[in-house]
């Protein structure tokens, strides 16, 4: 399955039975150089819209929201030591966390790549 995108500039990718979450290139570019990432605890249950990670650039702090209800099953510890990965490879190496959700069909509510490209103009 392909990537889905939220209005908060997060991307979601299904990987087996989990959803991988990161931020888009557009978001990384808008934030500027990322200098700090705080990740959620593994095995935390989150509800859609919860603040579950923090990303700070040279300019400001932003929250990463849980895009879905579910459980955090993995976090990308590499970002803690190398926050600059978010600027270098936002769609790949700089994933933030993986979530386990009950029903993958909830991803249908989010944009596909074309719709997201229209959003960011």
């Amino acid at each position, binding site marked *: 399955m392909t990537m889905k995108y939220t209005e908060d500039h997060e991307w979601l990718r299904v990987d087996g039975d989990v959803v991988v979450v990161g931020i888009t290139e557009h978001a990384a570019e808008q934030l500027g150089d990322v*200098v700090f990432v705080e990740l959620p605890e593994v095995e935390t249950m989150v509800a859609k819209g919860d603040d579950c990670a923090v990303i700070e650039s*040279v300019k400001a702090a932003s929250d990463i929201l849980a895009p879905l209800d579910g459980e955090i099953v993995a976090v990308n510890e590499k970002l803690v030591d190398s926050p600059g990965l978010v600027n270098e490879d936002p769609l790949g190496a700089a994933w933030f966390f993986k979530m386990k959700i009950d029903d993958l069909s909830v991803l249908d509510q989010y944009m596909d790549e074309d719709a997201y490209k229209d959003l960011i103009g």
Partner: protein
Amino acid sequence: MADLKRTVFYDLHVELGAKIVPFAGYEMPVQYPMGVLKEHLHTRSDAGLFDVSHMGQVILKPKSGGYEAAALAFERLMPVDVLGLPQGRQRYGLFTNDAGGILDDLMFANRGDHLFVVVNAACKDQDIAHMRAHLSDACEVIAITDRALLALQGPKAEAALEALVPGVAAMKFMDVAILPWSGVDLWISRSGYTGEDGYEISVPESQAVAFARALLAEPGVAPIGLGARDSLRLEAGMCLYGHDIDTTTTPVEGNLTWAIQKARKAGGAREGGFPGAARILRELAEGPSRRRVGLRPEGRAPMREGTVVYAGPEGGEPIGAITSGGFGPSIEGPMAMAYLPANLKDGDTVYADVRGKRLAATLAPMPFHPTSYKR
């Protein structure tokens, strides 16, 4: 952005790919395509060119007499020794109010028969009004509106400017000189706001863009935006007016007692005689109750302006707040300035409330990154 002003370099910023933001009433470049982090590091390793034309340039010309007349008048507004500044030298100054608070900080230079003053962009209109109100008996207060101001900072600044303007390499930190380039006079000081060696150059607007392009063509010179200017000055431990000092902080609380020379202190040749002298002289004698200090957070999380500081990891009332904070690219970690009780010392630990969690930070000497002035 309808009523925002532009400096003479606006089109050049856009051509260089700058991201433009409103700042102090101007549309200014916050960063170029290099990005804040690399611009910061480039300034420390090579040379950075900054547009600081939004700042106010003012000449104080004595109505009769020479420099001494202008200096004595100017001393009425600042707890600073203006009279004792030698010709061709620049010094840091502060306008104070009757309560001892700081109205603005500035640079002034002795140019023989007059003073040249550079003030902050956000304060320049009120500063000029303040000087006109209090100095007009002795000085003509001339706002310079037809000159741009550039800062060239970093280890390659000297070679770059010397290539265009022979003679600048012989200047020392805080020297000022008037030197020709392409038929116009440049007003040059060897100073800046980054902790690096470098220059600030006032250039007539007619030649300003050509001069900036000539500097950008020199080896190692890159345009640098306001984002990196802020992280560079914070690493250098320098105050940003309106954040780290303002009308509610005195120079003593602001840890700027080094800017108050002996002549203006108790027992000095021209003791007191500036706004707020009673409080400022008392704080010099007895010590302030709080003071601006440097903080190094223990983890990686930046502690931003407004973050509340506590003595312990839980409970208790706030003991102060952070006035500037962010990530220092050269020190590769977070840094901050805060006002805290004056009994705390370097090495002491305090706790800052970051998103509801108390994170430890250590009082640390400033500058956070060593300065490299040409003394």
